[in-house]
């Protein structure tokens, strides 16, 4: 167990290192700071116009959570695609380390950074839209963010396995990402959705953690524990699904020659 953890740590560290280049201020300002804030501002302003609510707290929370989509859905979901494009996938697949451990190691540091992004997004958004941060119970809020990020990552891992069988990952990931904007209750209450889609929303990552975080920021704790439990359960479920899917996809990829570039 200890050895596995040490392999995992080495792989996580080197994976993260391999994606980092020299710090470029314009990239940081535009992509890591400016774009997420503008994106969040856009949706919160849209809510301010269409809902005209007394407080924008729940939209700030919801859209801050959605800031994780870049890493959890796009980066994790394209982990395999990037390996394939750079010709490393064949080595990774044929090495004895499990594909899932490889993917988890790839996601380890990005999750930590995304946790910080969501938290920073919430604080900056709160300043822009004048939300009172003094009454917030921070520990439950951090728990909401952590559990939400875990299930979104597991979901991203599950999606990543599809790239072994299809070349349309850009399409799938964009579709799913926009779907999360609609179905997780970040921008309008899920009760507005038709019954079927309400059911789907309950199975998606983020829905429950956004709901819980909304409660926490409103100073209420009712149902928070239950929502976090379900969100945690979804994290485990997607993790298990990813394990099964990656085995099936690898077999498909060997049969249909989809391991290499299309």
């Amino acid at each position, binding site marked *: 167990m200890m050895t596995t953890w040490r392999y995992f740590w080495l792989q996580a560290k080197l994976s993260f290192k391999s994606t980092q280049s020299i710090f470029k201020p*314009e990239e940081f300002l535009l992509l890591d700071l400016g774009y997420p804030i503008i994106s969040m501002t*856009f949706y919160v302003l849209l809510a301010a116009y269409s809902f005209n609510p007394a407080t924008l707290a729940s939209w700030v929370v919801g859209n801050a959570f959605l800031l994780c989509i870049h890493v959890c859905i796009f980066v994790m979901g394209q982990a395999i695609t990037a390996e394939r494009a750079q010709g490393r996938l064949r080595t990774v697949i044929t090495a004895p380390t499990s594909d899932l451990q490889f993917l988890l190691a790839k996601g380890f540091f990005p999750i930590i950074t995304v946790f910080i992004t969501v938290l920073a997004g919430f604080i900056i958004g709160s300043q822009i839209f004048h939300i009172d941060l003094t009454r917030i119970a921070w520990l439950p809020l951090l728990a909401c963010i952590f559990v939400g990020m875990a299930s979104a990552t597991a979901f991203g891992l599950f999606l990543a396995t599809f790239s072994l069988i299809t070349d349309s990952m850009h399409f799938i990931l964009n579709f799913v990402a926009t779907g999360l904007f609609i179905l997780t209750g970040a921008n309008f209450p899920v009760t507005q959705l038709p019954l079927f889609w309400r059911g789907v929303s309950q199975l998606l990552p983020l829905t429950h953690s956004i709901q819980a975080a909304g409660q926490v920021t409103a100073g209420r704790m009712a149902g928070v524990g239950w929502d976090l439990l379900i969100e945690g359960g979804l994290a485990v479920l997607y993790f298990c699904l990813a394990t099964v899917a990656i085995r099936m996809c690898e077999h498909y990829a060997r049969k249909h020659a989809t391991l290499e570039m299309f």
Partner: protein
Amino acid sequence: MIHVIWETIKVQMKNSWARPMFRFTLVASPVLNTVLIYEMFLHSGRHDATSYIILGSGLMGLWSSICFSSIGDIARDRYMGVLPFLFTSPSNYNLLIVAKTIGNTVLASLTLVISAVTAAGLFRLTLQIPHPGLFIAALLVTIAGFIAISIPISYLMLLSRKTGLYMNVLDIPVTLLCGFVFPLSMLPSWTRPISAVLVPTWSTRLLQLSLRITPDWPAWRTTLLWNGGLIVVYVGLTALFWRVIEHRVRQQATLEVNE
């Protein structure tokens, strides 16, 4: 020359359609945006909700397609290593970019149709067009404006190796600043000058004006003038950028990929 432009437009439309991501921005994205904006406006009680839902999501899709296609084309050409050949070939690269952009924008205009069909099909929501002639005129001016703005941006991308980065970060800010889905009065006043120099702001206003039962001719005149004036400025910028860029890309070697 017309033949070259027409052939490039045709090839471009075919190439773009072959890319899954283009099909996403063209078809899936307007459908999903229409659903999202509809749900957000569902209980708003605002009289302009329908135009924001249908036109707003269509314009969002149109702008996304331009960001990821016309502007992204340079990134793709550069990544595939064909940019140096295109740039140094005897045919005018200028002309190729113009033709490619026309092809993309015309195809991307379908997003407006898709938004309208989605709203009608899913929510029984239709846009009342009291003066079809005026609406079509506004639509043509909109398409011309979107073509005009995307060409100088495409040229600017030749100067940078980070086209992918800018392509991504141009999408939402323009949607925000041009009032596609909510009025510009929602934004702080310091953003007004930025909105004013972006032609999509005036195209959006023209489209909204064309939906009024009684045409507001003075507003039409002003908005048209802004549209026309900005298109002329963008064409001027295109010519200027081209001269500067031709020299600077050779000086700074930005035609090649640098990871």
